[in-house]
């Protein structure tokens, strides 16, 4: 892949002048070189990923027939249907439609939904913030719960506490997010009646946030803008259960990862050396073993984004959290496959971009990644 880009200026090691040098040495120097090159190559790799996913989704969705019949088949008669299909251009050859679709996507136009005729990009802007907010809360929960518990499990390795923590981690993973959501709802909203059942805020707070001059769509930021403590606490209370639901799913994975990696670093030479100096096992875990164990987590977060998005779709449906996933489920229900295709394609772009960012972050932290 290194041959794809040619930015010798960013290389700390200029290619050797002497052409007689062995090609392997030459290659190794180039490959080992700069972070800038890695970022460029990694960025170019996004393009085939997005291209493949978008193509895949397009042709798969078209296999079923045209989206207009799927969405409106029962409601319009044959002629009206044909008219709509013709107007939308779905009676043209599929390759023509495909290239048109690619062109639209390249200019950032993901099409409009059939049932309520809204541009997909508008849907993204309106509901994307909610999903992002939820994912952010969930990641915080996952970090707060997963990392300390993982270190604890490594510290108590093969003892009862470790077993309990590992079973907890597996339970986090084994519980479908929507069931976890239903359980939490049942306990905290219905039986204990301390937390709201669903939604992102109560109508009163939403009304208060409606008239803000620069609304962000992130309810927490908006709530702080109103300056009303009641609104802030209302928004936060609404976020607790969805964040826990989605966060615990990821927390279980973090816990397992941290445990495995801390155990791995605990048997390295430098930890052995520290141990021989008489440093306590607890301190070893706290100070010496855990930092290098966190590096793999950063690389794994990339894959977690995909899981988090899958989970967000289900969590949002459970809690009527009006985000992208909730909208996706709604459009799925009304068989509006253009909207579904648009949202899915958009999520593909988001996943590819976040993976890129995560990979670059990993490369900055750990130079070995920059192959």
């Amino acid at each position, binding site marked *: 892949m290194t041959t794809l880009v040619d930015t010798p200026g960013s290389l700390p090691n200029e290619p050797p002048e002497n052409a007689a040098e062995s090609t392997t040495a030459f290659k190794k120097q180039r490959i080992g070189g700069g972070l800038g090159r890695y970022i460029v190559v990694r960025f170019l790799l996004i393009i085939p990923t997005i291209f493949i*996913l978008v193509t895949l989704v397009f042709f798969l969705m078209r296999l079923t027939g045209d989206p207009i019949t799927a969405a409106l088949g029962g409601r319009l008669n044959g002629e009206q249907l044909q008219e709509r299909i013709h107007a939308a251009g779905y009676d043209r050859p599929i390759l023509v439609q495909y290239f048109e679709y690619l062109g639209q996507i390249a200019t950032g136009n993901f099409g409009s939904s059939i049932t309520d005729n809204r541009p997909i990009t508008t849907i993204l802007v309106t509901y994307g913030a909610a999903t992002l907010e939820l994912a952010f809360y969930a990641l915080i929960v996952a970090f707060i719960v997963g990392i300390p518990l993982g270190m604890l499990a490594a510290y108590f390795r093969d003892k009862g506490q470790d077993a309990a923590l590992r079973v907890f981690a597996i339970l986090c993973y084994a519980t*479908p997010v929507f069931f976890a959501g239903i359980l939490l709802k049942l306990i905290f909203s219905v039986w204990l009646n301390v937390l709201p059942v669903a939604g992102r805020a109560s109508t009163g707070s939403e009304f208060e946030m409606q008239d803000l001059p620069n609304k962000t769509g992130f309810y927490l930021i908006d709530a702080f803008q109103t300056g009303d403590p009641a609104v802030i606490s209302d928004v936060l209370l609404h976020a607790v259960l969805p964040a826990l639901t989605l966060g615990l799913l990821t927390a279980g994975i973090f816990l397992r990862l941290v445990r495995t990696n801390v155990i791995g670093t605990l048997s390295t030479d430098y930890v052995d050396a520290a141990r021989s100096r008489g440093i306590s096992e607890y301190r070893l875990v706290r100070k010496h073993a855990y930092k290098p164990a966190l590096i793999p987590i950063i690389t794994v977060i990339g894959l977690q984004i995909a899981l988090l998005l899958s989970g967000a779709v289900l969590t949002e449906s459970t809690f009527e959290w009006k985000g992208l996933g909730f909208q996706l489920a709604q459009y799925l229900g009304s068989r509006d496959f253009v909207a579904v295709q648009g949202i899915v394609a958009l999520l593909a772009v988001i996943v590819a971009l976040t993976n890129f960012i995560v990979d670059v972050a990993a490369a900055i932290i750990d130079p070995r990644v920059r192959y």
Partner: protein
Amino acid sequence: MSVELKPRKQSVISRLPVLHQLRQSVGLQRGMLVAGLVITTVYVICAVFAQWIAPYGFAQLRDASGPFGSQQPPSPAHIWGTTVGGYDVFSRVIWGAQTALEVMIVAIIFSIFIGVFLGLVSGYLGGWLDRVLVVVADAIYAFPSLLLAIVMSIVISGGQSSLYGGILAAAISITVVYIPQYFRVIRSEAVRIKSEAFVESAMVIGASTPRIMFRHVLRNSTRTLPLIFTLNASEAVLTLAGLGFLGFGIEPTAAAEWGYDLNKSLSDVTSGIWWTAIFPGIAIVLSVLGVTLVGESLNDLADPRLRGRRAVAAASGSVALTSVVPGGPLEAGPGGLAGLEDTEGEADRDR
């Protein structure tokens, strides 16, 4: 211990994948493995004998004494109550096990066959096909699996599904998600194994490419399959439930499906009706938990760094069994010396 020093003499029973690990495991790890096996066994029994365990059919709304009634609390006649649609919760949970098992089996058979075949071809033959397949598999792998399953289920059934159509649609949707995992593992194994000496010697004898691929490479590249198999089985249950929860599963009259039941129970929960949600939910958790516990334990036992400390010492003699060639490297036919020479040659070329 003397048995393990001579792996070839072990009985067939103790060499079976799960039983071997059961013997290898110690203490806590054995506890987790046994717990997983017990839960999985109970789950499979429920699924296979659903017909005799469940008191009613999965789509049964009335018996001799009239309709069941909607949202009835648990009672002797309906030990786990009835759903909003008037179905018996207990019966639907038991029948749901059967649906989940069917989908799981079909999905895993599909993805193993397709994934293994593609991985083998890609890894062994290499070339442009390999590159294309790797890029495609990576793209699919990075994508949210649930979304892909949704797209697939739209393609296959248009969102509406009948009895076997529904099970097949769900299974194929899940298959597409998991093919890349099998593909990756088998491909990397195939790439590694094709440079082994016994493959070269097979070529020298004049064995055909398909014969080498399926007889020599495939047989030696399947050691990690049980691990992915168990992990995927649990993910298949979760994906099926997720599809059902979003309304893309199987119609309630066609088969019982836990995700669908949970979706219908969502509105019950807010009014304090807990039995329609708790039981199918726990059924999902337990089935996933059982299979995952087995998979996790197998995974840990295969990785010496994660094996319990005592277990490492105890089982070190049998590590060879988990390596590429069961029974140790000596069995690799005329590999021995030739293999050494070959690696030396490669080292020279590198220098």
